[in-house]
């Protein structure tokens, strides 16, 4: 049992923290947000240069063979700096599908471009009524010759505007909520029949609603078993949840730090407001919430390697519950302790709050995961 980073991991942390300190202050972020698709290609290429985009890919695929802990380090750092670039969409999720189910040919076609920063991906999964159920899929993929024809609508696809390739979940068999009959397809974003409507999200990222109308793809578009890929989707989404937990920990750390600094310097009635016990206790509770979240983020990171899929999912669901509760408390109280200034777009803290809030509603909120843990028979 060991919760420390090893030497290489410490270096990784230093290197990404250093890079983001240099190139990701709050003012720069505002500029990046205005670039096409809502993020900076220059920053993305810097991440590529440092090897961060190749981190979780195997050495055989041209990557560095990093594991869950390495992704945790990166996601925490990205959270801390409120980074807009599509690491989750491209490296964790899109890359995750390729790592778990890509054939050699598929990897050869996609991974080098991902690692060198020239290609990004997006995960087109959410549907109008699917909410958090990954098996609730109405988008269809029908066999045509060797290939497939895909029809359906996908919503809030992060990085949907810039992505070169979409990873699309689609039903090849069965009814809307059947657990079998779901496939995963790699769809070029510029394929005929793909229509995108892009927009900024509440937390400063960009997403797109995507309509697929008679989109034809070849047999090489299929990731894994086209008729039974729910387990694959769950696996990759579990990894995305773990990554979001780590990002949230980074965001909470920074929110707490910023808030504590603020109440140390903000004076009223001649004294720093941080000298008031009611505020001190609130800040202490924020610390407790953030530490509990950190513990569960570590737990989830280590749980992603559990052999037993049920045990893995249960642990990650539990982590998402703790993170959801902690982030809500830390986020809301950060605003409260900042007072009026916390309500302004100008102050950094509100942007942390907004990103934290959106994380709670990504891939299952607190109630959703709490129910999953309850239905699985608990955690003891």
């Amino acid at each position, binding site marked *: *049992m*060991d*919760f*420390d*980073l090893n030497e290489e*991991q410490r270096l990784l942390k230093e290197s990404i923290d250093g890079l983001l300190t240099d190139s990701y202050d709050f003012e720069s972020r505002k500029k990046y947000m205005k670039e096409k698709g809502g993020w900076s290609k220059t920053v993305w290429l810097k991440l590529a240069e440092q090897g961060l985009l190749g981190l979780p890919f195997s050495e055989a695929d041209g990557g560095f063979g990093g594991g869950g*802990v390495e992704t945790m380090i990166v996601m925490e750092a990205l959270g801390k700096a409120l980074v807009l670039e599509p690491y989750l969409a491209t490296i964790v999720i899109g890359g995750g599908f390729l790592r778990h189910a890509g054939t050699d040919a598929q990897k050869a076609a996609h991974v080098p471009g991902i690692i060198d920063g020239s290609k990004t991906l997006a995960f087109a999964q959410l549907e109008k009524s699917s909410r958090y159920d990954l098996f609730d899929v109405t988008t269809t993929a029908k066999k045509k010759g060797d290939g497939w024809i895909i029809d359906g609508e996908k919503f809030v696809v992060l990085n949907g505007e810039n992505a070169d390739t979409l990873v699309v979940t689609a039903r090849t068999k069965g009814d809307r909520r059947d657990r079998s009959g779901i496939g995963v397809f790699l769809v070029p974003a510029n394929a005929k029949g793909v229509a995108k409507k892009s927009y900024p999200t509440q937390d400063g990222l960009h997403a797109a609603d995507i309509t697929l109308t008679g989109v034809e793809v070849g047999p090489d578009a299929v990731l894994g078993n086209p008729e039974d890929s729910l387990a694959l989707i769950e696996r990759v989404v579990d990894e995305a949840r773990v990554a979001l937990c780590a990002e949230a920990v980074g965001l909470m750390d920074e929110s707490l730090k910023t808030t*504590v600094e603020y*109440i*140390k310097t903000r004076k009223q009635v001649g004294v720093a407001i*941080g*000298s008031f*016990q009611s*505020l*001190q*206790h609130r*800040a*202490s*509770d924020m*610390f*407790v919430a953030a*530490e*509990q*979240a*950190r*513990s*569960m983020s*570590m*737990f989830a*990171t*280590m*749980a992603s390697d559990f052999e037993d899929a049920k045990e893995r999912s249960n642990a990650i669901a*539990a982590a998402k*519950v*703790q993170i959801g509760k902690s982030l809500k408390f830390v986020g809301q109280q950060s605003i409260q302790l900042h007072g009026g200034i916390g309500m302004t777009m100008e102050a950094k803290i509100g942007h942390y709050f907004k990103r934290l809030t959106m994380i709670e509603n990504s891939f299952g909120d607190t*109630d959703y995961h*709490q*129910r999953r*843990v*309850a*239905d699985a028979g*608990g*955690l*003891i």
Partner: protein
Amino acid sequence: MDLAFTKEEQAFREEVRSFFRDNVPPDTRRKLVEGRHLTKDEMVTWWRILNRKGWGVSHWPTQYGGTGWTSVQHYIFNEELQSYPAPQPLAFGVSMVGPVIYTFGNEEQKKKYLPRIANVDDWWCQGFSEPGSGSDLASLKTKAERKGDKWIINGQKTWTTLAQHADMIFCLCRTDNNAKKQMGISFIVFSMKSKGVTVRPIQTIDGGHEVNEVFFDDVEVPYENLIGEENKGWDYAKFLLGNERTGIARVGVSKERLRRIRDLASKVESAGKPIIQDAAFREKLAACEIELKALELTQLRVVADEGKHGKGKPNPASSVLKIKGSEIQQTTTELLMEVIGPFAAPYDVHGDDGSNEAMDWTAQIAPSYFNNRKVSIYGGSNEIQRNIIAKAVLGL
């Protein structure tokens, strides 16, 4: 980073577990499961079994009878002990006064007291809190005046846990009225059988008798019963209170209770079916289990950190343990109340003999709920813990 216990650690867990299985008197275990108070005899019997095994004072240095275990082994031992459940060692002797004596006491004191603490030949109690000194402990007034080769002690202590069983007390006494309040306190030990010591029970809201008032009226104590230096008692008290950081989370206790809740909830019916099938209840239970898992992980972080970097600099996460640990213990007793519903009401009509198994299990649930309100108050209330985090961790 690695969550797994080593093979050796797993084997150690098995060894500990099977020792408990074979050696904890079944009636003692049953009473703990049901949240009942144990008799002095039941506790001492078990502690002597533990001491014979060499595990009575496991965390002491080996020359005084400790085991030399790693932090992880201590963690495993405590967890198994709490979740079996078996009575935990008497903290006042084993975790509090013992370490003060072997760290600050002279050779004679070590020889005289340590073996008797280990075997519970002396039952120790703690003389810290006073009616006017709770969280502001340093304001204590109990006075020890030197007269020749004796101390004359006058004053009153309160909340003295299980003083009714005690043979010995370690006591913070004011020995210098002119010094700054923390600087004029000494750490003195003496017999509870001394002339002038009066113990008066305090009945708590659960109907139990755990705590007492203790009065000192011209109690004569040999001068040599001073531990360490005169007027340094505050330092020893801080040492003592900081000594036991991780056990305070009581993760094992809460685990055991959650297992019991799950078990009862699958037997007790609500709306014609076991209450565990009620979605709202099940989610509440899951919520508590998740909180406990997070706390367990936080505790493991602290344990692993101590194992690697020593106990010198406490991990900031350690201040989480008391707050969350007490909150979760309280939640588990609330959930038990929820499970038994209207049967929370009967007072302990069946007594302690376990003769009426059908109803017996309900009798202690409400008292245990009432009693557990203490856990966020004692050992530095949770509000004090928040002050500590604000000052020591956040720099406010």
